[in-house]
């Protein structure tokens, strides 16, 4: 395993009385692709917020590249610059991530904050616009975009820094199949690069494509840490974690299920 780029040691995070992350320890190797799965409210988003140092552990410690990340440590301008430059976070809801007047301004926001020279920012923005197929909407206000376009702009606004670590919270949520497929293609294309990718999702259908390691969270606890294939084969685990449910129904094919199972519904099936 490569050196850990992010590491949690006995991290607990509470929202007032509610424990969102419970005594979690894990290490994420540089260059790995990790899927974090769990039902709604299992702690996936909180974990990503912690990994991006937007929230800090109530107890325990978080390490980035061997150094402990605390609120105090990020007050140091150089440390903050280094961390924000190397770690990018794509929020679940692109609405909260898009706050500039136009798509171009949005993509230029992060490099501007990090003090890149204007000429470099202009060049990089143009390249990113083409790469993410946003040329037609580049001067459009962000609130006039479709959800798929918003998501791509949100990803572009993080990718422009070319971060070593990318954290994505439900990147395909709320997207139509075509937009989903574009985002998944992008994630798949990152396989083989040196980039570390952590994706929180409850879409089990994509985790084998985009990840080589899968963490399962349930009620704030890390309950499994295996390969995606092993996780997908463990229906008891998936049922306990609320990722599949047990139900009784029949298919047109004549098959009958009365136990937890993982499958895709075809049109016309109940």
């Amino acid at each position, binding site marked *: 395993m490569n050196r850990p780029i992010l590491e949690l040691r006995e991290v607990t995070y509470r929202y007032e009385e509610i424990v969102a992350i419970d005594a979690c320890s894990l290490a994420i190797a540089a260059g790995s692709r990790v899927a974090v799965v769990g039902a709604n409210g299992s702690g996936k988003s909180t974990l990503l917020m912690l990994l991006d140092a*937007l929230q800090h552990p109530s107890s325990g410690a978080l390490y980035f590249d061997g150094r402990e990340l605390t609120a105090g440590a990020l007050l140091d301008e150089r440390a903050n610059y280094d961390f*924000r430059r190397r770690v990018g976070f794509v929020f679940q809801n692109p609405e909260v991530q898009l706050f500039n007047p136009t798509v171009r301004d949005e993509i230029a*926001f992060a490099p501007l904050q990090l003090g890149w020279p204007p000429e470099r920012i202009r060049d990089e923005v143009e390249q990113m616009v083409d790469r993410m197929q946003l040329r037609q909407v580049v001067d459009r206000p962000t609130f006039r975009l479709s959800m798929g376009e918003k998501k791509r702009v949100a990803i572009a606004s993080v990718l422009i820094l070319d971060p070593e670590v990318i954290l994505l919270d439900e990147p395909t949520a709320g997207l139509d199949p075509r937009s989903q497929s574009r985002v998944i293609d992008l994630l798949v294309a990152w396989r083989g690069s040196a980039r570390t990718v952590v994706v929180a999702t409850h879409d089990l259908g994509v985790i084998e494509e985009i990840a080589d390691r899968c963490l399962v969270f349930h009620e704030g606890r890390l309950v499994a840490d295996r390969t995606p294939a092993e996780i997908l084969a463990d229906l008891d685990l998936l049922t306990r974690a609320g990722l599949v449910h047990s139900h009784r129904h029949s298919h047109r094919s004549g098959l009958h299920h009365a136990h937890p199972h993982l499958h895709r519904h075809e049109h016309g099936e109940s």
Partner: protein
Amino acid sequence: MAERSLHAEETARRGGLLQGLDARAKWIGVGVLVLAAGLARSFAVLGALFGLALLGAVLSRLRLRELAVRAWLPALLFTALVGGPALFLTPGPPPAGLPEAVGVSAAGARAVGFLLLRVETITSFTLLLVLTTPWARLLAALRSLDVPGTVVVILGMTYRFLFLLLASAHDLFLARRSRTVGRLAPREARQLLARTTGVLLSRTVNTSQQVYLAMVSRGFTGEVRLLDPLAMQGRDWVAVAASLALAGVAIWAGR
């Protein structure tokens, strides 16, 4: 509101007299002219300042109709609401040509007239600044003029908060309408309004916190940074000097 804000960004990018000036020069110029309008005690001076604002709008290619809708009409309504009673409550003889039975005093009419002209002039100058300067440059200019970073961040977040508040309010209103059959009794309507307002505020506060975190995540530290940095040129200094001179004359003449 989003459309209006977008329109303001568009007018700010048009070619025009004020659009070509540095944001700091505009802050200073508008600041001293607003001060002069606040201190002026002469109708002629206030009228001249109002005329100056009109001239600035025309030379900056702003539509006067837009100024009328966005500034003059609301200012007129506001002034009528606030100052209207003074027309009748201020003691003194009626204005020439108006019967005493109407109950309006000359002193009251003069006070309301001053208030109206002053508010219209100040609003026009302020709108000139906002409509000819992109929002990010306005904030960056404030920082450059040594306004504390906290104040600038609060202003910036307030701007974003307003958008979120209105978007949430719109969604909540639609969701409520889709589930309401018939008319509610006034008491029920008031209760629903109170509950909705509470939910709206807490939801918007939560979302605006998320927006702030998204900004921090991309390196935001409270400083407003621009792709084209602010730079005072010769014409900006001339504009500042001219504004100071005009404001000085207006304050002197309008004592």
